[in-house]
């Protein structure tokens, strides 16, 4: 899989930002993003838990993760 040039440019711009501000600032920005990703994933799994079909999917996911 290839990504367009703008993706790497963002990586570089973000790294420059990280270097140019105190850790407290970039850390707060990054933490908000990472925690939001996990919250979103967890709420998706919670919604799946509420339906019969969802529980079957979750069970398959768990089995796949255990075997992986």
């Amino acid at each position, binding site marked *: *899989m*290839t*990504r367009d040039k703008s*993706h*790497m440019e963002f*990586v*570089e711009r*973000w*790294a*420059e930002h*990280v*270097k140019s501000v105190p*850790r*407290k600032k*970039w*850390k*707060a920005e*990054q*933490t908000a*993003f*990472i*925690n939001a*990703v*996990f919250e979103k*994933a*967890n709420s998706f*799994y919670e919604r799946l838990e509420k339906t019969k079909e969802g529980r079957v999917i979750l069970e398959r*996911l*768990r089995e796949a*993760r*255990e075997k992986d």
Partner: protein
Amino acid sequence: MERGISDRSVLDEFAEDFCRIAEKHVKYIVVSGYVAISHGRFRATEDIDMIIERVDFEKFNNFHQELDKAGFHCMQSTKVKDIYEYLEKGDGVRYVREGTLLPPEMEVKFAKDELDELQLKTRKKIPFTGLDIWFSSIEMNIAFKEELLKSPKDLEDARHLRKIYEGDINENFIEEIKRKIKKERLK
């Protein structure tokens, strides 16, 4: 270490809690994606990769028992002998928080060759990250990502680390590691 309560992400909390226990039982390093993330790379990950020194069963059992008491659950098995066998075969074993099979998870592997031994030998705690964790060196991570792993995500991780440490990277060491990777992992 000066730090506010809210500046640790879900990943940081998981990693530091796990590493605090690892530190008591084995020589370990955290490698790959989480190294870049702990340096500010703007992405998440489901798994954190840890390499530990090869230890005998008794030592690993002590480590595992303490993880278990602290609420870390191994996904592949609840039997420590099975888990140890996985490690001895060269497989990774994955730990998550008890009561969930959801990420984040810690994937633990035994050091498998001279390169991993070198990673353990040159491990570092890195003040830039603000984390109390042993990491494999920046040069090692860049070399592995550029020479062995090479996915777009890995190349971006390497680029991020190169930017952060611009002018402060030992390029000769990176080249030496790349030569060793070619010899030991790409033969």
